[in-house]
């Protein structure tokens, strides 16, 4: 066990800097999301007016906000809600996008043309503006943020899968499977899709980053998750007002955490792209 852990550490140590950082940070984020709310020193919702707006110190590592809430505890607690929101959105767009893309890419003809049009339409929107529109229509709730984020991310998966399936439709190995009278759904699922796992993992990781940004952006302008629930975007928005009176820590720490989370998934996507390249395995 210790041997294995040591081996893992050595492996990570041998990675390029960005990749090593992303793997470690990914683990940290997952752990924080899992146990963060139980280990933070203060109740993230407890207001203590007497200790409002204290700068970072040993008792309050990231300081306190205008209501005396501990920013460190709030920042850590927010990890779960931000990651779960993004992850739910990415999973929805991965599943629906992949299914629609695979069907469209294989069938070709009118189905392909129609779905391509629909995705072009969605992508023709400046996506954040679309997300604002959708979230506004759906009402202020986490689920509307998730749905809005899923809808704007879905075309990326659908497009990629469609292109890859379409390209492989005429590959020799697919034609060999057709010659062996293997039914089309099986060919797509078991002969083509395994080749798409690496690019889809990369795409999912990158989209996680975008989804986190998207969800935080929506809450920043007041859509979706509502105060007092701790969420990075809201906390930055709250803190922005106090920046002009010199209380920089209120917006800085949640913003940094948000940035770290996005950076983790962006770098992880890059690292996955390198690792999963089949040519490198030889």
């Amino acid at each position: 066990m210790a041997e294995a852990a040591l081996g893992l550490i050595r492996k990570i140590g041998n990675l390029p800097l960005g990749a090593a950082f992303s793997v470690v940070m990914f683990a940290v984020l997952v752990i924080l999301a899992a146990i963060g709310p139980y280990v933070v020193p203060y109740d993230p919702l407890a207001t203590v007016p007497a200790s409002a707006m204290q700068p970072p110190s040993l008792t309050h590592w990231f300081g306190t906000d205008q209501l005396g809430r501990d920013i460190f505890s709030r920042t850590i607690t927010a990890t779960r809600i931000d990651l779960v929101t993004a992850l739910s959105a990415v999973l929805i767009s991965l599943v629906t996008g992949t299914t629609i893309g695979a069907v469209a890419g294989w069938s070709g003809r009118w189905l392909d043309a129609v779905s391509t049009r629909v995705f072009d339409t969605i992508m023709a929107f400046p996506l954040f503006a679309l997300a604002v529109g959708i979230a506004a229509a759906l009402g202020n709730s986490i689920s509307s943020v998730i749905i809005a984020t899923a809808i704007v991310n879905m075309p990326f998966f659908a497009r990629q899968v469609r292109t890859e399936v379409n390209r492989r439709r005429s590959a020799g190995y697919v034609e060999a499977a057709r010659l062996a009278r293997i039914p089309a759904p099986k060919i797509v699922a078991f002969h083509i899709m395994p080749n798409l796992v690496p690019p889809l993992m990369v795409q999912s990781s990158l989209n996680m980053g975008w989804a986190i940004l998207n969800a935080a952006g929506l809450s920043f302008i007041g859509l979706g998750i509502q105060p007092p629930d701790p969420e990075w975007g809201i906390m930055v928005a709250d803190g922005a007002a106090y920046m002009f009176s010199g209380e920089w820590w209120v917006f800085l720490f949640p913003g940094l955490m948000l940035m770290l989370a996005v950076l983790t998934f962006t770098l992880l996507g890059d690292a996955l792209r390198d690792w999963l390249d089949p040519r490198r395995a030889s």
Partner: protein
Amino acid sequence: MTLLDVKALKKYFPLARGQLLHAVEDVSFAIKAGDGLGLVGESGSGKSTIGRLLTGLELADGGTISLDTSTDTAVQLVFQTAEEALNPAFTIERNIAVGLGKNRSSDPKRIAETARSVGLDPELLTRRPHQISGGQQARAGIARALVSEPELLVLDEPTAALDVSVQAAVLKLIDRLRRERSIALLFISHDLEVVRLMCDHVLVLYLGRVAEYGPVEQVMSAPAHPYTRALLSSAPGKSNRVRSAGEALSPIDPPGNACLFHNRCPSATETCRTSKPELITLRDGWQAACHHMERS
């Protein structure tokens, strides 16, 4: 016994603005069990399309393909570039297993046996396509086609991407398998020399039409069609060259009432520009489509 009988095969591909690409036009031939037929022609002559029509990967727009077999996997295809033809996500073993068809997803004994018969080391079976050499990839592609014990093997330029030293080994392998298992071959190639070695009959295609069709020694020693002569004389290593000037006509909506080779033919006359030559039987099993056969 005739295994495959193809009559008046036609295939058109629709293009933009209502144009039609005439890929295969009125092609007829037959292959006896265990026989080898070579299909030669330049790129765009329709030779690969014929192979795909025979295997059912494309549907014909006219003509008949009658196959005298009982199984539905009797015709198998060996693809041009072996690397693209193997699934990069699968091991070589699984790649070969695909050839077994939908009902038998695995049969390790049979796969190992087939691999051995094409000269693939069993330890390579657990590797992935990019981990083996080009020659080994070609063998794996052949193994996949063979594993269902086909009666007709369509080979689409199976050695075009290989070095001569590897090509020689693969050609010998195909020839050996053909004799051992008495499989019929449809060998698609741009290389007449390879067809001469591998086949009993040859069919020369020009822009989707049959230019000449006959026993390979006769066609190669005394070609009747000027295009066959041009092909033969342009092969490297032949000193006396008959050059055919110019470029081929477009296969898109070609003239229906002309010899399509007329613009490159040294002996073309007005007749060639205005009437389409029919296939004429020169001798038993030897045909050519040219207006000026007696003169040439």
